[in-house]
């Protein structure tokens, strides 16, 4: 018999996400996937899943979930003040939810997204090899949409069945690893493919400015508010492929950071690109958060990613 999760309250925007579907750019389909992939990966490690197993991504305000047959769970990412049958449970730690226990999560106390990982993963039919919800096209995940009250989610088979795995051993992510991986508000960037089309004055403003994350930000892109950059008004550039984390400047002179459910091509010039090591930080930005950009060179971007991956691969990450 497979285990299930009953969705009693979905929260503001809760979707099934894994690490996304790469390789469909030639069809205009972006990868989607977890907005904070580091939090997803660590949550899956805590419950004994492969890194890319599907889990629930909650946004700003979490949901209420019941486990009729119980489940091993872990909450990672932002702190949504989770309780299990009204007793507070820790973040970044595996928890043994007993049959009929209720997990409640509330409004965020830190970042934007909290992940609920379950041993055995959330079982959904993959679309193009991934269980990630792609909201724009209404595909993947749970019926291609955000969760609703009353949804029943299937938990995949755990081998061996977890109830026979005795005793349950609590696992937790070590504190100084979390310290290294904590989301940043100063995003490190490399130069964008059109950075030379911006004047020195524009680039100076860009690197000195504090921007505010706008309300209309979502998984497709983060819109920023702040001092507009002077832009070159000589015609539009020809549409080209755009990368995850690209910082494009609109004709109004304001940045948009392309995010996991990004358009695959675009026609705005890109002044910079957030480095891969800081993608997870993007996933934890909330509307009205204030951020800055810090330029780094190509080698630093590579070293920072390598360091992050080395930390994630370390045996001493989990106790």
């Amino acid at each position, binding site marked *: 018999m497979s285990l299930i999760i009953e969705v009693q309250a979905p929260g503001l925007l809760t979707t099934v996400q894994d690490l996304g579907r790469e390789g469909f750019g030639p069809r205009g389909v972006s990868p989607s996937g977890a907005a904070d992939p580091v939090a997803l990966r660590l949550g899956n490690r805590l419950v004994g899943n492969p890194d890319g197993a599907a889990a629930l991504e909650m946004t700003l305000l979490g949901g209420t979930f019941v486990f009729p047959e119980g489940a091993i769970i872990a909450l990672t990412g932002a702190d949504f003040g989770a309780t299990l049958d009204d007793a507070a449970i820790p973040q970044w730690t595996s928890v043994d939810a007993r049959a009929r226990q209720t997990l409640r999560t509330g409004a965020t106390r830190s970042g934007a997204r909290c992940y609920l990982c379950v041993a055995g993963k959330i079982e959904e039919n993959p679309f193009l090899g991934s269980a990630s919800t792609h909201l724009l096209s209404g*595909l993947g995940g749970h019926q291609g949409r955000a969760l609703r009250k009353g949804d029943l989610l299937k938990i995949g088979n755990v081998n061996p069945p977890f109830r026979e795995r005795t005793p349950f051993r609590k696992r937790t992510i070590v504190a100084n690893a979390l310290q290294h991986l904590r989301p940043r508000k100063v995003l490190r960037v490399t130069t964008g493919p059109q950075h030379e089309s911006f004047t020195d004055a524009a680039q100076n403003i860009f690197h000195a400015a504090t921007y505010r994350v706008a309300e209309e930000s979502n998984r497709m892109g983060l819109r920023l508010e702040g001092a507009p950059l002077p832009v070159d008004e000589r015609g539009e550039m020809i549409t080209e492929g755009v990368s995850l984390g690209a910082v494009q400047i609109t004709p109004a002179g304001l940045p948009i950071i392309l995010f996991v459910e990004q358009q695959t*091509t675009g026609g705005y010039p890109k002044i910079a690109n957030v480095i891969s090591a800081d993608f997870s930080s993007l996933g934890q930005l909330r509307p009205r958060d204030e951020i800055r950009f810090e330029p780094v060179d190509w080698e630093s971007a590579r070293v920072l990613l390598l360091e992050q991956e080395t930390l994630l691969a370390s045996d001493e990450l989990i106790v």
Partner: protein
Amino acid sequence: MLISSVAGARFVRSSDQSLLVYFDQPDKNRPKHLPLQGKSLVEANENVRRLLQLLDSQPIAGVRNLHPAYCSVLVKFDALQWRHEEMEEKLREYLQRLHEVPLPEPRLLEIPVCYGEELGPDLQDVAATHGITSEQVIQLHTSTTYLVYFLGFVPGFAYLGELPEALVTPRHATPRRKVPAGSVGIAGNQTGVYPCETPGGWRLLGRTPLAMFRPEQDGLSLLAIGDRVRFKAISREQFAAQQFEARLNA
């Protein structure tokens, strides 16, 4: 050095895990800020399709995604496995062999469109802008065989060109918050069909009853890169009937 030139292409770093390959060699007759168009754009796009085809038949391990466009391909790679300069060198080998890649005989597809009224809310304005009638706009839009330069933006969106000179119109300064699926629009010298409801700034001439994004099909879309496309005007009644049929099949 971020830019280098080899085999008629240039490379620009897009992010710490991606590289743009451009086939738009500077032309002394073309001011730097004006994009390619006409014959040179079609030729550049043929190279885009050849590179895509070559990378599809002989994939490079660690290349994770490709985003083709008019005259460029964005190559996304595993940054733990490849440095930009190594990927560039690898891609150069592919570029040397581009001329050996035969492009398939293009398919010709016809897309029925019901023009005007609430299905094409910008038809009259476009006509007025160019000092012609709505009928002339429809006549011009349906008289050209377009090339599918690439699929991009959102799943199933095909960038078609080039629009007849007399229809070239800038996009709306402020995009609409919601453009219905199937809307047929124009922007600059391009035309295309919105596959799903999205925000959009293109000027809407009409709507097709056909589903553009087809997740159940192999190619995922009605149109594929390199296809040729013609639009055909249909009546309100034909639109309703075909839309009914399309929904039955969906």
